[in-house]
């Protein structure tokens, strides 16, 4: 077995510098369309979006990342593409549909949980990509153990419930049971466009439009799928160790814009 030890040593350290410093390696994030001032043609461009993630207010375009499914229609095959952001610190504290979320920046779990958090990962109908990105968190590049995050198979030990997928009818009961079986305090982290808005599955008669239809969501990680770094940021936000992103298109006071409120209300 000594060859394996040598092989391990030769490989060196691959682990990302994040969260100490930003990770800049290419291909670590798909990015998001950047909203803002667009000028003429804003509403035409916004109407190309298949999921209603873009809303034009005069010449300005607002992006609702929770709905964006990375189809690139707002940048490919158009004369004047929308700008593009290359970040990954996307996780926000939820402004849930039913107004369950606090909106405050108080860590969801409280101080004792900062350095060691057990996460239960539940697939509620995802396409496999979000789950695969969660899987990457265990590989040497991201190694979430170094940050005190551990995956647990049992709800009894879990502090964080990480849900991917739009919540299918067949998974709803199981998801609810898992949530109920977790000790308090507990925190739900919804990961991916499907878990936040139904994504491309919104409107199916066998799915909800995301986790917030079933459980109180504390942390939202948008992306289709969010890359491992974004999910890591989400966990750090849940632990109170990173500042949540401020959702663009939502004014400072936390009030959703009229457009996004109206479309969110159309959930059921």
């Amino acid at each position, binding site marked *: 077995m000594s060859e394996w030890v040598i092989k391990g040593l030769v490989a060196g350290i691959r682990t990302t510098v994040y969260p100490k410093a930003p990770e800049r390696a290419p291909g670590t994030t798909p990015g998001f369309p950047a909203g803002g001032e667009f000028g003429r043609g804003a509403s035409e461009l916004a109407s190309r979006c298949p999921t209603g993630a873009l809303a034009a207010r005069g010449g300005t375009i607002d992006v609702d990342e929770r709905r964006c499914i990375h189809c690139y229609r707002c940048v490919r095959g158009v004369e004047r593409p929308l700008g593009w952001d290359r970040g990954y610190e996307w996780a926000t504290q939820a402004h849930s549909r039913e107004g369950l979320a606090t909106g405050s920046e108080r860590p969801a779990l409280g101080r004792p949980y900062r350095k060691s958090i057990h996460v239960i990962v539940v697939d509620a109908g995802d396409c496999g990509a979000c789950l695969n990105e969660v899987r*990457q968190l265990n590989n040497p590049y991201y190694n979430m153990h170094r940050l005190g995050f551990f995956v647990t198979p049992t709800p009894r030990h879990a502090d964080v419930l990480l849900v991917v997928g739009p919540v299918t009818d067949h998974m709803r009961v199981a998801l609810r049971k898992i949530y109920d079986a977790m000790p308090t305090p507990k925190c739900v982290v919804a990961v991916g466009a499907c878990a936040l808005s139904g994504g491309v599955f919104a409107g199916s008669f066998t799915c909800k439009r995301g986790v917030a239809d079933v459980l109180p969501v504390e942390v939202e990680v948008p992306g289709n799928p969010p890359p491992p770094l974004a999910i890591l940021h989400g966990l750090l936000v849940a632990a109170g160790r990173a500042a949540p992103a401020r959702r663009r298109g939502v004014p400072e006071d936390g009030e959703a814009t009229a457009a996004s409120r109206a479309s969110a209300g159309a959930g059921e």
Partner: protein
Amino acid sequence: MNADRPQERRVTRERFRELIEERWPTVVHSIVDLANATIELDCPRRLLRELCQGLFHDFDLAFAGLTVEEDASEWKLRYVFYGDGEAGWVHVLARAPLDDTRFPSIVESVHAADWHERVAEDLYGLQFEGHPRLGDFVLHDDVWQEGVEPMRRGFDAEAAMHQRQPNTDWRPVRVVEESGAFVMPIGPKFSGVTESVHFLLETVGEDVIRTSTRRYYKWRAIEKLAEGKSAADALLLAERFAATTAFAHGFAYCRAAEAIAGTVVPPRARLLRVLLAELERLRHHAGAIQEICESCAFAVASSHAGIVEEDLLRASGQLTGHRYLFGVLAPGGLACDLTTPACRTTLAQAQEARIALGALLRELSISSSFLDRLEEVGVIPLRTARAYSLVGPVARASSYLRDLRRARPYPGYEDLEFDVPSEEEGDGYARLRLLFSEAEQSVRIIEQVVARLPEGPVRAPFEPPGGGALGWVEAPRGGTFAWLRLDASGVVVRYRPVTPSFINWHAFQLGAEKFAFQDFPIILSTFDLSVAENDL
């Protein structure tokens, strides 16, 4: 060739037609599509069983799938058989008036059709007479009441939701009836980071005697969702229903759409599609290898494979903007061009992955404690692979060779040199080795593609008339199909994907028979099954 194989194997198309004519004079045959080599056999229902049995056993044509369509006046059931030789695809069509939902089941002679019929029964309310076990399948009986037929034309989702009477008394079927036998349920939530699926392990103590699976916990009804969407919008669904192999599903979908429209994809786009498809295969295989190492609790090897997987995800992101290759495909070609220098970078990254994987395989193949856990577990004999018409690495590890890139070459692959690796043992280790050799072939293909990438446009105009067509692609897990029908305005009337995981889950229970409990995760990982691909 085996002496017991029938004589009709690999006949020319002409000879095939003659043979059909001699044996079943009332079956109307026609060649519908010369380019894609398809023969349609219009079969009266009373002959259906006999014809399918003949095709499967005497002509040795494997079964690829069943698609149901409900058009304005009749049911159209399309049984697709692989014609490996010159004969081409063979589609058997059975029709019936809409008020008559009875069809003979072909399961007795074509066991591979088992789950296809169950799906059709559940979604359309068709009755397959003679099928040994219908019932609880796509729609879970503890959630939906009987008689909900969601794929029927007039289906009213609102009404169905309101009349639901969940049945809390529902219990799964048990088979083992020995004294002391008990069932160990696993899932839908189990283990660390896994997809949702349920297993019932039946046991009398030490060993598991039988395994059955319950799937469709993740059923999102994408076939229903696709109806009424434009051809371009349904592609978004095709890419996203099982995104660990998103490109392959999108590719099959585009090929179906392009076959309807008669679109000729420009040469540069053809080769770029090959490059992306092989990049996806390479990345997928690295991930599958990682999961096998992890299931054996071999942390160092699992880390090394994990590094390769992430490297390739980054390479994909760097090349196309998206780590899972979303948004690159478009009916008619690609949505954006990829520059030749960028492709060269990808090639270099793929070559690095090949070196890393090669080194990993060398180390693994001398780690006896690792091999002990993989050898002779989850064995699928050739006989089973054939009876279930298995696909992909799982089939080829049991020397059941079919690779659509070779058997039915599609644009881009015609002039490329590559091998279709195979193994004989059909066990976990054979499947692992096969993943390594296929990954190597993918890099070989990428090398050739980058060397001969022509300049030119990447997208042809796509204006579909109405019609239906089958698109097929060899996805990383095996052959994947998209049956697509568009109406005259280019709107999707029917989109039916048949995926490799759907096919291979069917045989999983045979690989998971009579084994020790602790081998279960290993057997599961070597089958490399996606739940999202099955649950649609």
